[in-house]
Structures are given as structure tokens and as C-alpha cells.
């Protein structure tokens, strides 16, 4: 670093609290989000292991279950309501505190400002508040486990009347469900703050020469995700307010007349519409799917180009595809409701729009393969996870072609076919992108390299493991296996699929065990990894021009100037096989 330090107008804060806890530095906040997500993903995964165990051993008595849940697992046998609360919390924690948090708020916070040449986010204090609000939301969510009745059992979609009529609909529907809605509302607030920061930063804080069409694709996906979050979470917040009023203030937004629950006439609610909740929820819920996956697409595009040493195939098409997905994402929520009793004509409109959104997704896949074509692929662990992402994205995306047709949904709705579909495309595909991002950016974030051998073993085990868990879900879906069942022994035709479920459970154990390798790698590398150089991957974007880890205000007071697009690899006539974005214009012989 030859940059003069005194050029910086700002000084790094001193003192433990301002530096690491209530920090306004986007890099610290990004790392805080990352570790919040890491905690959440292990919590969510543990819940899923308990579920998978119970599904294939519904009668098993495990003594420490009784220790953990003296009531809901009295005698060590898990009750169906405990199973459903694990399921609800698994889904909620994974969707909100992992898939929404890590790729966007974690990596985005850390790398968006650096990649566009800014010193920080536009509103650093707001950024800090956003993280601590998210933290509060997580605390409130986890608290639902410890209240009377336990965590809610209505699933992450919380359909009323099950979620709206109070504890008479089941255990966990008391305080637990109220806390759940409260946590989601707090989370919405945090996401809105984050979205404001991401959009203002991208629009206004780009450095000289960083035209929009010179931004790395990661920045594009963070921008579009922020817009989706802004509009989507606003609606979820409104829906959450209405649902909580139905529960605590006796209003009837979603609760209809004529309810008779647990031998009681529900006289104080009338005239509400359960479908209204579904419309509001999925107006948020479908964009949420893209909030989870778009940053993953950005990371994948970015890494494929870097490690294939090639320009991204069709940069503009990729940008337009992201914008199209973002826009269409708001017009397809009804495909979650084909069987809900909504107008069947609107189902047809939603299905056509749904097929339309498949087109930009397909474009992305084609362009990824086009990017690899003719490349010189370096198989780093980060690249392996990106390639794995492409494979999973194809597999998970194609099952959507079945589910997007209302006619075929007549059979598949709420079967394991759906569970397999969304886990593959928005669950593990997004998580693969997170692993890719971790291996790729770890050197920059912590100044040390991760272990590649351990990383590759982890990759192969995880790749085979998730295919082993989620592919068979499609098969049992074909048999008509309903989802959200804690036990399959009551339905005769499910006898044949129980061995398949056993196989999935074993694969889940294996995959979970493989994650221990990741944690070891992460923490071992933090302490003992080889020192990372400034640009270990010979990549082009701005974060690779600054030390690892970057100084407090990223560029040490120097204002970077960008002269090239983000993916100038293997340019003919240039000796080195990459041109940094900040290289002088003369670095490239002719406009390439």
C-alpha cells in the first residue's frame, strides 16, 4: 500500500464496543450478519435433522428429547405438535435469517461499497441499526421456543385461521405464534432499513468511471434484491399487523364467520377472508424467493467468469434477465394459490406469467454454460460450489415447470414434489452460492486463505448429500406423499415410500456431518490459514485492489477510478490474463 493514509478524512473508531459491536463500518456489519446467518443455519439444520429423525422413527423414545422438551416430548417421544413447531421454525429461520440475511446483508454489506468504489454504505448508522434490529428479530423468534405452548405449528406461511384464532387451534398457537408474527414484523423493519441503504449506495456512491453497466453482476443482483425487499417486506409488514390484530384485538381481517373450533363456537370473529392473508403473504412470499436466490446468481456469475478466466457470456442479457426476474417476481404470487379456492381464471393468468419468469432463468443458465465454454477453468473450492450451484439450479428449476401449471398442480400441490423443488432451487442452491462466496471472499475479509483440500472434501460430500436428500423427495411426490406430515404410517399408500424417506434421512445425517468440516475449515483458517495476498484469484473487481482485509474506509482516502468492465479476462494482446477495472485505459490495446 503506497496510498497516503493522511488523505483519509475519517479515522477508525477505537474501543471494543464501537469497533466490533456497535460498529458503523459496513465491513464489520457484513461480518456480523454473516455470523448471525451462520448461527441460524446451524440452528435451522439441527431442527431439520430432528424432523428427519422423527419422520422415520415416529415411535422412538430418546431420553434427551424429554430433557429438552419435558412436555412436548414427554417420555422421550416427540409429539406431532413438536414436529410441526420444529418444521415452522426450520422454515422461518432458514428463509428469513439465512437465505435473506447472508447473501444480501452479509456479503452485500461487505462487498457492495468496495466493489463500486465507495468508502462505506450511504447511511452507516442506519446500517448498524438494521443489523441490531435483525438481531432483535432473531432473539424474539427463538424466544418462541421457550414460551407456554412452545413455538407455533402453522408453518412459515402461517395461514389463518390456524394462525389467527388463538391457542384453541393447537399448542404453539398462543404466545408462540404472536411472538412469531412480532419477530417477522421487526425483521421487516430491519430489511426496509437495509434496502434503503443498498439502493442509495448503489445509485449515488459509485466512484468515477463506475457506470451502471460496469458494475459486477453481484452489485446488480444486490440492487434488484434490495428493491424486491423494499416492496415485498412493506407488504408483509402490513399483513403481519393485520394478523396480529386478529389475534390480540379481536378484529376479523382473516377470520370468517361460522367457525367452530375445539367444540367452541367462535362468535367474536366474522366476515374475514383467509384468502386475503394468502394474497398479501405471497405478494411478499414470491419475491422473497428471488431475494434468496438473486444474490446467489450474482455470486455464481461473478465466480464463473473469474475462474473460467473469461468474460461473462452476455453481460447485458444477464443484467436484463435479473431486472426481468425482479419485475415478473411481483406478478406471479398466485401460483402458490392454485388450489386455494381463488378464481380459477386468475390461476391461468398467473401460470402464463410464471412460465414467462422461467425464460430469464433459462437465459441465465445458458449464459453460465456459455461463460464456461472455451474457458480455462481453475477448480478452486469456490468454483466447485459455483458449478454445483448451476447444476442444482437446473435441477430445481425444471421441477418448477410442473408446478407452474395449475393443471399439474392438481396433484403436486402440497406434496413432497414441492418440498424437493423449493429446497433445491432456493434452499441448497442459495446455500451453495454462500459457500462459494465464503471461499472466494474469505481471504479478503480475514486476510487468510481457507484450506482447499478440506474445502473440496466438504464440497463433494455436500453436493452428493443434498442430491441424495432432495431428489427422492420428487419421487415420493409422484406417489402423492403429502408434506407437513409428522408420521406416514396412517396412510396406507405411503408404506412404499418409507424406505425412501429412510434413505433421505441418512443423506441428511451425512450432509450435516459434512458441515462440521466447513466449520473446522472456517475457524482453523481464521487463525492458521496462509496469509492472503491482495488479489489471490487474479480477479478484476475493486475489492482486489485493496489490502486483505481492507483498511477502515476501504481505499485509505484514495478515490479509485474505473476504466474497464468487470469481466475483462484473457483479453487478446494483453500479456496477463486479466485487466483490473482500475487499470489505465491503455491497458487494453483496442476496445474489446
Amino acid at each position, binding site marked *: 500500500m503506497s496510498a497516503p493514509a493522511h488523505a483519509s*478524512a475519517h479515522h477508525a473508531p477505537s474501543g471494543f464496543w464501537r469497533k466490533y459491536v456497535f460498529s458503523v463500518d459496513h465491513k464489520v456489519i457484513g461480518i456480523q450478519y454473516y455470523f448471525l446467518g451462520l448461527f441460524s443455519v446451524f440452528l435451522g439444520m439441527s431442527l431439520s435433522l430432528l424432523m428427519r429423525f422423527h419422520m422415520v422413527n415416529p415411535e422412538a423414545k430418546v431420553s434427551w428429547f424429554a430433557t429438552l422438551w419435558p412436555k412436548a416430548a414427554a417420555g422421550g417421544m416427540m409429539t406431532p405438535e413438536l414436529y410441526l413447531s420444529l418444521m415452522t421454525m426450520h422454515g422461518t429461520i432458514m428463509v428469513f435469517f439465512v437465505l435473506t440475511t447472508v447473501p444480501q446483508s452479509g456479503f452485500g454489506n461487505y462487498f457492495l461499497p468496495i466493489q463500486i468504489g465507495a468508502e*462505506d454504505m450511504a447511511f452507516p*448508522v442506519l446500517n448498524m441499526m438494521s443489523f441490531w434490529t435483525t438481531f432483535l428479530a432473531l432473539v424474539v423468534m427463538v424466544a418462541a421456543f421457550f414460551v407456554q405452548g412452545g413455538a407455533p405449528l402453522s408453518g412459515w406461511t402461517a395461514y389463518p385461521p390456524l394462525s389467527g384464532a388463538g391457542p384453541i387451534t393447537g399448542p404453539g398457537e398462543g404466545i408462540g405464534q404472536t411472538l412469531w408474527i412480532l419477530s417477522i414484523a421487526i425483521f421487516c423493519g430491519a430489511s426496509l432499513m437495509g434496502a434503503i441503504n443498498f439502493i442509495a449506495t448503489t*445509485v449515488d456512491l459509485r466512484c468515477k468511471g463506475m457506470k451502471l453497466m460496469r458494475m459486477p453482476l453481484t452489485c446488480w443482483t444486490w440492487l434488484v434484491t434490495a428493491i424486491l425487499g423494499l416492496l415485498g417486506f412493506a*407488504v408483509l409488514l402490513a399483513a403481519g399487523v393485520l394478523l396480529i390484530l386478529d389475534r390480540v384485538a379481536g378484529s376479523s381481517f382473516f377470520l370468517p364467520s361460522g367457525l367452530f373450533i375445539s367444540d367452541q363456537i367462535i362468535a367474536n370473529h366474522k366476515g374475514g377472508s383467509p384468502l386475503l392473508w394468502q394474497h398479501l403473504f405471497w405478494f411478499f412470499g414470491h419475491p422473497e424467493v428471488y431475494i434468496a436466490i438473486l444474490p446467489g446468481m450474482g455470486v455464481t456469475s461473478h465466480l464463473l467468469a473469474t475462474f473460467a478466466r473469461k468474460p461473462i457470456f452476455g453481460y447485458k442479457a444477464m443484467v436484463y434477465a435479473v431486472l426481468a426476474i425482479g419485475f415478473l417476481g411481483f406478478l406471479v404470487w398466485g401460483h402458490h394459490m392454485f388450489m386455494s379456492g381463488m378464481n380459477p381464471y386468475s390461476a391461468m393468468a398467473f401460470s402464463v406469467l410464471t412460465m414467462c419468469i422461467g425464460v430469464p432463468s433459462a437465459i441465465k443458465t445458458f449464459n453460465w454454460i456459455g461463460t464456461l465454454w472455451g474457458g480455462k477453468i481453475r477448480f478452486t473450492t469456490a468454483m466447485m460450489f459455483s458449478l454445483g450451484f448451476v447444476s442444482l439450479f437446473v435441477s430445481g428449476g425444471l421441477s418448477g415447470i410442473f408446478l407452474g401449471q395449475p393443471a399439474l398442480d392438481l396433484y403436486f400441490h402440497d406434496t413432497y414434489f414441492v418440498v424437493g423443488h423449493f429446497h433445491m432451487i432456493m434452499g441448497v442452491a442459495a446455500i451453495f452460492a454462500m459457500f462459494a462466496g465464503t471461499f472466494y471472499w474469505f481471504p479478503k475479509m480475514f486476510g487468510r486463505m481457507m484450506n482447499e483440500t478440506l474445502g473440496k472434501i466438504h464440497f463433494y460430500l455436500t453436493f452428493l448429500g443434498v442430491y441424495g436428500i432432495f431428489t427422492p423427495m420428487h419421487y415420493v411426490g409422484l406417489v402423492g406423499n403429502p408434506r407437513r406430515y409428522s408420521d406416514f404410517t396412517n396412510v396406507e399408500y405411503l408404506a412404499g415410500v418409507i424406505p425412501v424417506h429412510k434413505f433421505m434421512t441418512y443423506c441428511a445425517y451425512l450432509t450435516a456431518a459434512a458441515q462440521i468440516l466447513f466449520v473446522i475449515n472456517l475457524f482453523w483458517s481464521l487463525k492458521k490459514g496462509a496469509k492472503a495476498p491482495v488479489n489471490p484469484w487474479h480477479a478484476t473487481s475493486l475489492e482486489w*485492489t485493496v489490502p486483505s482485509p481492507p483498511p477502515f474506509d476501504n481505499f485509505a482516502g484514495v478515490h479509485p*477510478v*474505473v476504466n474497464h468492465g468487470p469481466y475483462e479476462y484473457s483479453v487478446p494482446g494483453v500479456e496477463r490474463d486479466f485487466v483490473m477495472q482500475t487499470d489505465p485505459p491503455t491497458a487494453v490495446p483496442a476496445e474489446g
Partner: protein
Amino acid sequence: MGMAGSLTHETIQGPPPPPPFEGGWGGGGGGNDGRGSSRRASFTGLWVLLAASTMVFAAFTSAMVVRRGLSDDWASMPKPPILFVNTVVLLLSSAALDMARRALKAGERGRFNTWWTIGSALGLMFLAGQTLAWMQLKDAGVYVSTNPSSSFFYVLTASHAFHLLGGVSALLYVDVQALRLRLGPAKRTAIDISAIFWHFLDGLWLYLMVLFYVWG
């Protein structure tokens, strides 16, 4: 793989900072004039915030339209007449803020302080008036659960009031700074932002009044 090879590349290219207000969406410039909020970024942030608030109220409105159309239990609720007084108070507060901004443009700090203080006080009065309206409704036996029309009335007015709390805090912050004679150029942004936000809440309130009297 040998990826972790040494690096020969020059690190940061560092010509002097770019001119602050160049380009925007299409351009290549960035007003990167420091850590944190430049004036332009603050405005972008404001527009984004207004978009989010608009979405929240759009969601409530569509819920109201659907809920009203779906069933036969919708009964128009009695609206406390004080709402009209509140409306006038809110509009006056917006006007006062505008007078204040004009005074500032003319360089008259003293007049700015007076008008801004009046505007903030009227804002607080509106909140007090709303509280009065809710109490009157409560005394008349109209609660959140009484009828869907009253449910929506409470939800919409409370959400509006929640926004207003933020707005009033911003106005008071500016006011305190102004009275302590600390209005540097950076505070101009705070003045403009809080005034625009306040005007937005004005417009939102008028929209809600129309909604209540036509549909509620």
C-alpha cells in the same frame, strides 16, 4: 492450483476526487464526497423510504377494498368531527414549514426559527388531536374489533401516526439545532428531507380522509 501466487499489480489508481455532482443513474460519476450521507444519497434514501411507506399503505388499502367487497358485515362507522380540525392543523403545519424554508432561502434565520417552531408545534398538535379522536371513538364504544370499518380506521390512522412520530422527531431535531444556531450547510439537507417527508404525510392523510369518508 497455485492460485495464491504473488501479485505484481499496482494497487489503487489514485487521481484526485471527482467533482461531487456529476452523473447519476446513467453517468459514471459518484458524489463520493465522504463516508456516509451526501446530500444526493440522502434524497435517494428519502424517495426509497417514501416508496416503502406507500407500499405499506397500498397493502392496507387493497386489503380494505377486498375485505369490504367480500362480505356483508361492513357498516360505515361514525367518524369524530375533530378529524377535520386535525386535517386543517396538519395542512397548516406543512404551510408553516414551507414558510420557514422560504425564510431560510432569503437568509432570514430568525424568521426561519419562528416558522419552523410553529410548524413543529402544529405537528404535535395534530398528534394530540388524533389521540383525542381515538378517545372519543373509544367513549362512543367503537373499538378495533367493532366492525371491519373501524378496524381499518384504527390500523390506518395508527400507521399514519407512527410515521408522524418519526416526522415530528425530525422536525424537533432540526428545531433544536436551529434554536442553538447550529444550522450548518449539512443541516440544509436535514431541513429539506424532513420537510418533504412531512408534506408526504400530509398528502397521505388527505388520501386517508378520502378513503374513510368515501369507503369507510
